[in-house]
């Protein structure tokens, strides 16, 4: 390996995203080529059928980085925690 291992980031999944993937969270070292939220989702889609299913409609997936809402084009630089979830339905 010629470059330092990327730092692992904590991924969290909620509601039907969590159910489809089959776990509430995991630590993953994302490759350095993955720089935005949209690229993270595209990378996750290729991890397996459960991920492909959970992220089959990326336009409905909402994302938070370090517990703050972000858009799909947001950078993941500095992310310790990235959460993926459906549009919220509280209240």
């Amino acid at each position, binding site marked *: 390996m010629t470059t330092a291992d990327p730092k692992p980031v904590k991924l969290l999944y*909620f*509601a039907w995203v969590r159910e489809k993937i089959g776990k509430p969270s995991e630590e993953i070292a994302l490759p350095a080529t993955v720089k935005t939220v949209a690229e993270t989702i595209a990378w996750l889609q290729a991890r397996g059928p459960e991920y492909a299913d959970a992220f089959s409609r990326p336009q409905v997936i909402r994302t938070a980085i370090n517990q703050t809402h972000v858009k799909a084009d947001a950078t993941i630089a500095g992310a310790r925690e990235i959460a993926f*979830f459906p549009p919220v339905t*509280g209240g």
Partner: protein
Amino acid sequence: MTVCVQTEDFDTGREIASLTKNNTNIGAVVTFTGTVRGHAEGGAITSMTLEHYPGMTETELQRIEAEAVARWPLDATRIIHRYGELAPGDNIVLVITASAHRKAAFEAAEFLMDYLKTRAPFWKKETPAELSSEQGAGHWVDAGDADDSALERWKR
């Protein structure tokens, strides 16, 4: 100005009393209570389970509350949101706003609910009567377009 995310029920009267105690500047108190309906699109439901994002939920509710306090002359606010398994008729959410005059209290309460519904990381799952015996069974509630459009009038 307090935010609380909890499984326990709340007592609206007691919350108003504790919020307004010793503050005679307050001339208007508005409360909104959201409760679990016993029916969904598909028919009767036996329970509703609320999932949330511990940590972000509290942070997001505090952000929303701070925004309301910045926009209106509020003397006190309170947001309580429950999570876990609830039954039809149960309380889900309580928003209280207190101000010298009613206009600020009414507007701020609506603002808080409109923002809470589109920003606070909660997700509802409804369990219909026919699936009530299966653990974890049910339908995730879809977010309504009406909630997004409700935000439009607060944009500035």
